[in-house]
């Protein structure tokens, strides 16, 4: 389909602004750009149809099953959108006097109290805009803590080999060296390897629990203790919190700092890649270093406060506020019974779906899984030549968004499946039927899967060409 710039026609416009009601002033010549930005010229119906066409070429959670592992693509309730659009939230300037924004501040402190209860932490900052941004903040806090306590030479972060790529990337941003520790046979942290890795240079450990294999590490208390005894701090990557929210708390597992992904666990929409929110919860030992402008409840109302040894800010203002509004709606809706119930059903759905296909698809781990499971397709590929990618592309033709592919890195030909609690028994059964059909097709007609998808708006893309010869913007016709 055409680009905005290709449907543009000279002289078209919307009527949006009133006539200027004061004398027109011009910038002096030397400050002006030499030619106008080539923005499109369109009428409103052109725009409306263009974006409707684009939306039809987009697969959202509302379009169908979206079992994308570690991304928690749960249903996004409409009431949350309605709340976020209230003028009392959307039309408030971030630099208004505090007595005119008491509602926003009360909302943030209430959300903080509830999320601290769910995670077992003491305080929380809403400044980070996404999970990776939360990781950066969490590590800055760890770094500030060690610096404050005169712990020189603690510059290494331990990360299991099953970790999300953001963990090592975040560690590198604060100048930490990354030490990778291997997983044991059950998919958990190898305790001996961990004991060998810790020492006087350990700043901390970053861990996802349950991890990316969908395994809850039963040695968790021993793991966090090993790190604490070595003088390091424990960081909880909350990407997989949906498995255990309301059932077990990172704060009780020995973690000192945790980030959450409100756009995963707390039902706010992913928006095609954001905006999300990555609040960071901390134990008391890290409170003195929290980012500036922390909302706080005082005797006579709400205010902002800067922590004694604040690390500063990781973005402007107070975070993705409207995302926190949506997440609080979600928490208030589910409440104290609904939060653990969501986690339990996420785990139930995952186990049920795994149960429906594990006779034909080998899994990366045995036994009960948490909110996600990892299919290991290496044997299928050896037998039939059909890869994890081919199965994923076959799913596209059948209206299902594929699982996360080729992750975690320690499983070959991995497909990581996270159904979430908001899918029904029948949806899981239909998806299992499709996966069984694809398994049969892999043996009967592998070529058809190498060719998939065929029913999508476009078919497999030349990604190598895209990277070799990058075309990153529309090239306007000459003249």
């Amino acid at each position, binding site marked *: 389909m055409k*680009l905005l*710039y290709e449907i543009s026609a000279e002289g078209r*416009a919307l009527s949006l*602004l009133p006539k200027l*009601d004061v004398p*027109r*002033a011009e910038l002096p010549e030397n*400050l002006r*750009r030499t030619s106008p930005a080539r*923005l499109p010229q369109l009428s409103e119906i052109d*725009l*409306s149809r263009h974006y409707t066409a684009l939306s039809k*070429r987009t697969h959202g959670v509302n*379009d169908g099953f979206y079992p994308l592992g570690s991304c928690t693509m749960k249903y996004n309730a409409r*009431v949350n*959108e309605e709340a976020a659009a209230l003028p*009392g939230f959307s039309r408030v300037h971030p630099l*208004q006097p505090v007595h*005119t924004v008491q*509602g*926003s501040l009360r909302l943030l402190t209430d959300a903080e109290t509830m999320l601290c209860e769910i995670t077992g932490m003491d305080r929380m900052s809403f400044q980070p805009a996404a999970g990776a941004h939360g990781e950066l903040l969490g590590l*800055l806090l760890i770094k500030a803590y060690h610096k404050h306590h005169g712990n020189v030479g603690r510059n290494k972060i331990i990360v299991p080999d099953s970790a999300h*790529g*953001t963990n090592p*990337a975040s560690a590198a941003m604060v100048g930490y060296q990354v030490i990778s520790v291997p997983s044991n046979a059950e998919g958990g942290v190898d305790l001996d390897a961990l004991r060998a890795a810790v020492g006087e240079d350990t700043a901390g450990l970053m861990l996802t629990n349950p991890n990316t294999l969908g395994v809850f590490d039963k040695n968790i208390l021993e793991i966090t203790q090993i790190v604490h005894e070595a003088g390091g701090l424990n960081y909880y990557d909350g990407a997989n919190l949906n498995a*255990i929210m309301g059932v077990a708390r990172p704060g009780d597992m020995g973690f000192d700092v945790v980030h959450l*992904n409100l*756009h995963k666990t707390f039902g706010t929409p992913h*928006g*095609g*890649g*954001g905006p999300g929110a990555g609040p960071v919860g901390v134990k008391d030992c890290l409170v003195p270093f929290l980012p500036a402008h922390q909302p706080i409840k005082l005797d006579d109302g709400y205010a902002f406060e800067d922590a004694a040894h604040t690390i500063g800010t*990781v973005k*402007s203002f*107070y975070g993705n506020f*409207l*995302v926190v509004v949506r997440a*609080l709606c979600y928490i*208030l809706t589910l*409440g*104290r019974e*609904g*939060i*653990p119930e969501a986690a339990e*059903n996420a*785990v*139930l*759905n995952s186990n049920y779906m795994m*149960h429906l296909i594990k006779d034909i698809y080998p899994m990366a781990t045995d036994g*009960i899984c948490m909110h996600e499971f990892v299919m290991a397709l290496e044997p299928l590929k050896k037998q039939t030549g059909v890869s994890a990618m081919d199965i994923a592309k076959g799913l*596209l033709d059948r209206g299902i*968004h594929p699982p996360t592919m080729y992750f975690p890195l320690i499983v070959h030909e991995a497909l990581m499946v996270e159904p979430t*609690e908001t899918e029904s*028994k029948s949806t899981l059964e239909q998806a299992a039927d499709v996966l069984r059909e694809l398994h049969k097709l892999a043996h009967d007609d592998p070529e058809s899967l190498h060719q998939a998808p065929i029913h999508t*708006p*476009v078919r497999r*893309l030349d990604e190598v060409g895209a*990277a070799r010869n990058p*075309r*990153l913007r529309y090239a306007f016709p000459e003249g």
Partner: protein
Amino acid sequence: MGSYIPSSAAERSQMLGAIGLESMRDLYQAVPEQMLVSSLDLPEGASELEVIRLMQAYAGENRVFDSIFRGAGAYHHYIPSIVKSVIAKEDFLTAYTPYQAEISQGILQSIFEYQTMIAELTGMDASNASVYDGASAAAEALTMCRDKKRTSALVASTIQPMVMSTIQTYSDGADAEVIRVPELDGRMDIEALKSLLHDGVASVYFQQPNYYGLFEDAQAIIEIAHQAGAKVIMGVNPIALALMATPGELGADIAVGEGQPLGLPLAFGGPYLGFMATRMAMVRRLPGRIVGETVDVDGKRAFVLTLQAREQHIRREKAQSNICSNQALCAMAASVYAAAMGRDGLIEVANQCHSKAVYLNQAICALPGFEVVHEGEFFHEFVTRCPIDAQLLMQKLEQRGILGGLPLDDGNILWCATEMNTKAQMDQLVDALKEVAR
């Protein structure tokens, strides 16, 4: 209690039975017993009607001003209806990052269109798909310029304070030095810049128009920085870019900025949009997602996430940045906004902002005690003195339903006008100032 679980109680027990378990807690055999939570101290779950009432109560405790003369990094602009209706489309709202290109062409094409728009506005070759906000964009741009030999950055003191503090925090994390270039009459002190430059300086960052609304001597800054071998990063206001000389024309290496003025509500500070654009030579140092044009196996034009070898999921600790989720839906809002305003419309928005600010400036500065602080050209913000305590002045304006300019630390006031301020509103403000500052 509210719930979004579709399966019935009967279906859930069938599923439990099928996997050979009796109760939900059996699913958590791996969790140490003493760790299991018995009950959370949270309110009971609520119905949709109860929840929306609770949210209305929070929103009702905020004050919404119709007459706003405050900017300072967040700007009150008109948002066309089409912007709100497009970004409310459920497919866009509920999709993930477009990893599966075949069923994500809608999002991918919209990002490609956004990148084109940012490249056009900034005069640069290429843009990424967005970062968190203007402040984190500035901080990431400093990282792009650092190498083994050049690690320091010179940053103008005349930038938005939260951008400054974010730059400082990111740089502290990376153990990289940030030196503030002092100001002279509200702009970067060019002589100071010259004396601070050395061969360890990786980048010079300045904001155009700056925090006080003034235009910096961009040409001089860029020329001097380049002579010393440093890269130049310009923080820019996207509405002003419709009129002013672009970072591309001026010779800057990277352009960044806060995209909020392009169709995003004030929203108590977020979600906003950080944009980043650069020249082709530095494109592989850009953080975050980038969409490129390619073809599918049938030769049909298609779009795909590209240059991913920079990114964390491939490079892990060697990645250019850790960014993963960005502000995709905000980027789409900006794209729809710019398309709705169109080539001439965006110029008109910018010109109305400037014209109204000039009108307001003349009216306020004619009042005794409200003299202008800095001479020189400004875009839509300016600083005046205040004859009485600035906080007290603001309280009095507030009683008249006006959100006045932002009181600065030195007792002066930073005013802003946009296309949203009618002449009547501005005249009312001036009348109010006459009265309350007496």
